């Protein structure tokens, strides 16, 4: 059912199974027929863990989304609210419960908080007078959700803002909890490395939690060799740049949510023979699931988009040839064999058709003049050209009222690539933005400043060139077709975060002490002792497995770069990636924007 989770070096199906088991146990506690009322946000992440069939096997007969007023009618014994611990949701639940009481047979209410119970929320339910109505109030620790064979995410939208703006560490605590769960399933991770303030916190929490569990010795043979904790604010640059891998561009242009993407339907209209097919063109967005379960997608998603076309065309030839084989099938045996391969071939054809259409959609965007201009400016900034003055293109974007998020991304990128803007330049941009998009964005600009994305240069020192040169962040000769370096994911720029991971594995961070000191937050190393029986003896040529945890979010381009490193023949390290949120520059900036309460 989720076989793609077990393709990687670490079988993440084990985690998925543990999560499913926990869910089933909760459902069985509420004996009898049930209805689930969903916090809509959770249906996406839950879809990665369980299908409706699992719930049905445990007598879930009805499912609703959480809405105000009354619950829809349902002839069931139990009503289970499955929600994130958020105050506004508590108000709705209370409304549901109170209007329910007045009619007919009494039912059992339960509440399942994801990922954690919240005393604050329970207090609110108590204030609203409904806390006593719930029989089970429990938590479901859906901290890290397996997305793919090498990818885990907490899908916590607010994590970056909470950690770096509000200084609330709750999501770090969840990250640490998630890591403890992983260690329970995959063994203690002997080495912990980290860079950044939040990384330090998480490591501290892990050490502390481990101490509390001393009673039960973990006897699982360790799968991971290293854990690398990285703060997003160590590398604020990477997410701001436009991702240029296939998956990255799909995300930039259409947004991937819980491994699904919604696409304009026109290109996917089923073409039938005869004229009758065209009459009911679909108007609803076409929704596709994107993960490594699809062979073709696994092959092309991490490629630079410029290398995708040739792969698609090669595949088309192979599939055509395979279908042509039918003419050569003469004997009954041969025909039988051909027929037996048909389902696989049809699936491959369907997959090819979809990705050809998606590639066409993306190409329309990437070949536009504006995309080219934007990319040129980004690449200038990242290679250190003209970062200290007002940029014409940004000015034009504001004058033509391009989307505010696009403008903010560019201004922040310039600021980061110049270690802060000159006061005059910063003031100029701010003024233009406020006059064009509205004064209320004072609040958003302040948030960006607090998060360090936008700032005035202090002390007149620009450290970025030093960082760029030492870490070789800008590579002049990129091979997009057959890459030799991670910089292919941004057609020239090598993501700082991934470069840090690469240098850690070889030759080690000692070689870049100077740059590490310039980047924010401490860097550190911890060891967790293992009983002698569990210590690993590596076979010659066997790769290490590193779990890399991005605190505050990670982009698909960074994931692609890490997969590229995993696949290097003499790389020596394979990566499993975990994060608080899969994101891109736009969703990131958007999360930092101030909206009405």
């Amino acid at each position, binding site marked *: *059912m989720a*076989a793609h989770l077990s393709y990687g070096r670490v079988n993440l199906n084990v985690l998925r199974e543990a999560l499913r088991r926990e869910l089933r146990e909760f459902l069985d506690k509420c004996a009898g027929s049930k209805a689930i009322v*969903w916090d809509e946000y959770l*249906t996406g992440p839950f*879809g990665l863990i*369980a299908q409706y069939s699992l*719930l*049905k096997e445990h007598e879930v007969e*009805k*499912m609703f989304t959480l809405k105000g007023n009354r619950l*829809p009618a*349902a002839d069931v014994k139990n009503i289970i609210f499955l929600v994130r611990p958020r*105050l506004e949701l508590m108000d709705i639940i209370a409304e549901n419960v109170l209007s329910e009481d007045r009619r007919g047979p009494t039912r059992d209410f339960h509440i399942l908080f994801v990922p954690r*119970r919240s*005393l*604050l929320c329970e*207090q609110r339910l108590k204030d609203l007078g409904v806390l006593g109505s719930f029989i089970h*109030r429990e938590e479901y*620790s859906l901290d890290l959700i397996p997305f793919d064979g090498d990818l885990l995410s907490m899908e916590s939208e607010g994590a970056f803002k909470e950690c770096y703006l509000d*200084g*609330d*560490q709750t999501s*770090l*605590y969840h990250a640490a909890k998630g890591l403890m*769960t992983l260690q329970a399933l995959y063994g203690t991770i002997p080495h912990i490395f980290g860079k950044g303030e939040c990384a330090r916190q998480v490591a*501290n929490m892990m050490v502390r939690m481990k101490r509390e*569990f001393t009673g*039960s010795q*973990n006897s699982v043979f360790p799968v991971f060799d290293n854990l690398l904790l990285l703060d997003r604010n160590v590398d604020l640059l990477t997410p701001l740049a436009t991702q240029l891998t296939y998956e990255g561009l799909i995300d930039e242009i259409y947004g991937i949510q819980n491994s699904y993407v919604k696409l304009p339907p026109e290109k996917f209209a089923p*073409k039938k*023979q005869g004229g009758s097919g065209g009459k009911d063109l679909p108007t609803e967005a*076409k*929704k596709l*699931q994107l993960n490594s379960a699809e062979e073709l997608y696994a092959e092309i998603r991490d490629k630079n988009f*410029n290398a995708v*076309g040739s792969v698609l*065309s090669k595949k*088309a030839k192979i599939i*055509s040839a395979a279908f042509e084989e039918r003419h050569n099938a003469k004997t009954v045996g041969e025909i039988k064999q051909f027929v037996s391969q048909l389902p696989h071939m049809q699936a491959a*054809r*369907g997959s*090819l*058709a979809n990705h*050809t259409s998606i590639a066409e959609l993306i190409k329309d965007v990437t*070949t536009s003049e504006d995309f080219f201009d934007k990319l040129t400016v980004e690449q200038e900034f990242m290679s250190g050209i*003209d970062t200290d003055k007002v940029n014409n293109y940004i000015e034009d974007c504001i*004058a033509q009222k391009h989307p505010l998020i696009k403008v903010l991304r560019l201004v922040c990128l310039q600021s980061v690539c110049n270690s802060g803007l000159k006061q005059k330049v910063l003031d100029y941009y701010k003024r233009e933005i*406020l006059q*064009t998009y*509205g*004064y*209320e964005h*004072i*609040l958003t600009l302040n948030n960006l400043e607090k998060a360090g994305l936008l700032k005035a240069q202090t002390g007149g020192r620009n450290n970025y060139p030093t960082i760029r040169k030492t870490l070789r962040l800008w590579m002049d000769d990129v091979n*997009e*077709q057959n890459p030799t370096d991670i910089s292919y994911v941004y*057609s*020239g720029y090598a993501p700082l975060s991934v470069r840090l991971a690469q240098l850690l594995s070889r030759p080690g961070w000692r070689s870049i002490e100077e740059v590490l000191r310039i980047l924010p937050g401490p860097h550190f190393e911890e060891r967790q002792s293992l009983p002698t029986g569990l210590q690993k003896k590596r076979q010659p040529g066997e790769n290490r497995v590193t779990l890399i945890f991005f605190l505050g979010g990670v982009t698909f381009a960074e994931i692609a770069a890490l997969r590229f490193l995993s696949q290097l023949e003499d790389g020596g390290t394979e990566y499993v990636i975990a994060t608080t949120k899969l994101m891109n520059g736009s969703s990131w900036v958007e999360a930092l924007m*101030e909206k009405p*309460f």
Partner: protein
Amino acid sequence: MNRTKGDEEEYWNSSKFKAFTFDDEDDELSQLKESKRAVNSLRDFVDDDDDDDLERVSWTGEPVGSISWSIKETAGTSGSAPEGREQLKGRNSFYTQLPKPTSTYSLSSFFKGRTRPGSFQSLSDALSDTPPKSYAPELGRPKGEYRDYSNDWSPSDTVRRLRRGKVCSLERFRSLQDKLQLLEEAVSMHDGNVITAVLIFLKRTLSKEILFRELEVRQVALRHFIHFLKETGDQKLLLDLFRFLDRTEELALTHYREHLNIQDPEKRKEFLKTCIGLPFSAEDSAHVQDHYTLLERQIIIEANDRHLESAGQTEIFRKHPRKASILNMPLVTTLFYACFYHYTESEGTFSSPINLKKTFKIPDKQYVLTALAARAKLRAWNDVDALFTTKNWLGYTKKRAPIGFHRVVEILHKNSAPVQILQDYVNLVEDVDTKLNLATKLKCHDVVIDTCRDLKDRQQLLAYRSKVDKGSVEEEKIDAILNSSQIRWKN
């Protein structure tokens, strides 16, 4: 990096910055086309069976049986598109196996008695033989609810119990010292949930002054407290706290933020007035003042124009009815509006563009750009002309554009200005290459021809000859120039 102009050009010509287009445009395009063609031809071959029963997904891609799909399905009457479901039913063999869930028919009974329903066999079934103990230990699962009445728990025990989700009474911690110890224990656990619980308790049982004083020396707890106040919308206490901490700028911003929740324009304006003079940074302070002034203006303009529009006496409003109210629009949008509806008004009125420009110190560039867009939209070419005409003291006129004439041309073109007008402005573009490019793109033949002549570029002129219509005036003009003996061609 300081680059001279020459450098820059060289930089572009030798650019290592590749355009983000496919390496070999034609080749790549044809590759995509090729795979598309292949796909389509295959479709013809296999399309006797339906496309969609390959994967069990509904048109929207929701796999049948996924959670979000099921919500729509079982919610029955509460709003799912019926036709979509019918379609699905017809197409999907899987669907027909399922009884349509209704409130009287229990799905579970349908599946009971089948030990292992084939289509639902999941990995979990296959794996259920694995001993559970291998993952059990740390997937912390709080055991039920039970209240603890023991009075002996120390602060650290209490915090530990809270963390495991057990309900503990905090009331018996009466001394300040106990309460603070409780807080410190909570903070050292890093569990935001518990920290917040303790903070709620402290908020209720300590005086504001003492609470603030103690939080000030406990930064982690303080940050959680601020976040908690924001979350619960306790604006008053939050402002008191910032005042106590002397975090004046945050105080100002937090107060200002509240205007977002006020819908009524008059009330919002009054609220913004209370923000003026708050300790913002110098820059923000000016912006907040402008925000207030702008809304004040907009309220006056809105009342006035709504009246004019409904009276139906003013031509501009009759010809171009307003699409939306101007309230709460950004400054530049307001300026555009003023240039559109109130362009000729004298500087004394609130709605005159010049007045707006002066009041808000709108830079020339911004002003010209906006005025140009508004007047071009109305096809008021004389106004456009006037925008760029300056007179010197001798009375000679000269054309000047602070935004560069290439931008002027772009905007005019976007508003479909006639060729004659476009031509005048293309001619004013200073950089010859830009001028030629623009003129070629916009088919301003005269400009192209004259420029080639001035450049003495016979080859380019010859090339352009093939682009104009046979026997046209332009062709004649080109021929005349080509045959002229006056010109010393450079090629």
